[in-house]
C-alpha cells in the first residue's frame, strides 16, 4: 500500500508524516518548518558578489549567515533530491511542462508557459516574503501553532489563488 515504488501515497498519511517534520525542526533548531526565506538567503548571497552593500541592508543582512538560514537552504535543496529519488523509484519522472497548462492557458506554447512560470515564481516569492512566510511557514507551521498570522496569510493565499485560477480555463 505504501511501497516506495507506489506513484501516490494516501494524502492523509503523506500529509501527517510531513506534519511530523515539525519535531526535529523544533528540537534541534527551535524553529518551525519553512521554505521561502531560503530564497532570500540564496539570492542575496549571489547578489553579494556584485553588490557587497547588500550585507548592510538590515533585512537582507539577517538572512545571509547562520545555522538556521543555511539549514533551510539545505532543507529546500534536499526536497529536490527526495523528489528525484521518489519519482525515479515509482517511474513518474517528468520532463515537459504538466499537461494542465495547455488546458488552463488554452495554448501549448512552451514559451508562454516559461514566461508565466517566471512571473508566477516572482510574484509567489515576493508575496511570501512580504507576508513573512509561505504555505510551509504560515500554512503548515503557523496554523499548527495556532498563530493568528498563519490564519490571515493562508486565508489571503487561498483568496489570491482562487481569484487567479478562476481567470484561467477550467482544468477538467
Amino acid at each position, binding site marked *: 500500500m505504501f511501497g516506495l515504488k507506489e506513484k501516490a501515497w494516501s494524502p492523509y498519511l*503523506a500529509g501527517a508524516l510531513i506534519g511530523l517534520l515539525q519535531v526535529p525542526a523544533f528540537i534541534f533548531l527551535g524553529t518551525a518548518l519553512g521554505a521561502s526565506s531560503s530564497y532570500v538567503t540564496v539570492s542575496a548571497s549571489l547578489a553579494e558578489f556584485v553588490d557587497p552593500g547588500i550585507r548592510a541592508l538590515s533585512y537582507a543582512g539577517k538572512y545571509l549567515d547562520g545555522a538556521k538560514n543555511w539549514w533551510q537552504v539545505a532543507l529546500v535543496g534536499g526536497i529536490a533530491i527526495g523528489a528525484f529519488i521518489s519519482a525515479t523509484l515509482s517511474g513518474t519522472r517528468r520532463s515537459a511542462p504538466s499537461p494542465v497548462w495547455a488546458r488552463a492557458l488554452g495554448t501549448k506554447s512552451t514559451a508562454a508557459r516559461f514566461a508565466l512560470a517566471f512571473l508566477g515564481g516572482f510574484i509567489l516569492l515576493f508575496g511570501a516574503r512580504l507576508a513573512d512566510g509561505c504555505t510551509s511557514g504560515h500554512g503548515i507551521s503557523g496554523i499548527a501553532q495556532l498563530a493568528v498570522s498563519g490564519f490571515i496569510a493562508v486565508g489571503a493565499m487561498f483568496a489570491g489563488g482562487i481569484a487567479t485560477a478562476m481567470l484561467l480555463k477550467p482544468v477538467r
Partner: protein
Amino acid sequence: MSIIAAIGLGLVMGIAFGFLLEKSRVFEPGVIVGQMQMRNFIMLRIFLAAVASGLVVLALGQLTGIIPKLDPKATLYGAQLLGGFLAGVGITLAGACPGTILCQVGAGYRDAIVTLVGGLAGALTFAYLEPTLRPILLTGSPGKLTLHGLLGLPFWPLALVFAAVLIVALYAMERWRPWRTELGENADGVLPPAERVEEKAKTAAAPARV
C-alpha cells in the same frame, strides 16, 4: 548547532520532505491549479492532514516538555493580507509553492527551473524594496498573536480539539469523494475533460453497431 551540522540535518529532513511531497502528489501543477479552481481537493487533504499531525505533536511536545517553546510569527495585518494574496496569485500562476518548486525540479518538470529563477528574483527584489515598504506595511505589529493567547488558554487543549475537528473533516471529505478519484491516469491530478467523460458514457450506452 554548528552550521555544518545544521546543513546536514537540513539535507536529511529535506530529502524526507521532498520524498513525501512527491508521493503525496501535492507538487503537481494539475493538483494545485485544480485545488484553486475547487475541482481537485488533494492539496487541501494533505494540507489539513499536515496541520492536524503538527497540532498533535506540538501539543504532546509541550505537555512532555520536549518542545518547551513554540515559535509563532508576528502578526502584521497589512503585510499578511497583501503578501498572502500575492503569494496566492503566484501559487496559481507558478503551479507551485516555494517548497514544491524544488519538488518539481527534482521530479524533472522543465518549467520549474524557470519558476525557481523567478522566485529568487522575486525574493531579491523584496529584499531591496524592504526598506521602502517597512514604514508602510511592516511596522505596527500587535505582536506574536496566537489563538490560545487571545483566549487566555494553554496551547495543548485547544490544539488537540482543533486537530480532532480537522480529522473529522478529513474523514467526511473522504466519504464525500475518495482521494483516488482525483489522482488522474498519470498521477498528476489532470482528469479527463468533462465532455470526454460524457462522450464515453454515451458510447458505452449506445448499442454496438455491426
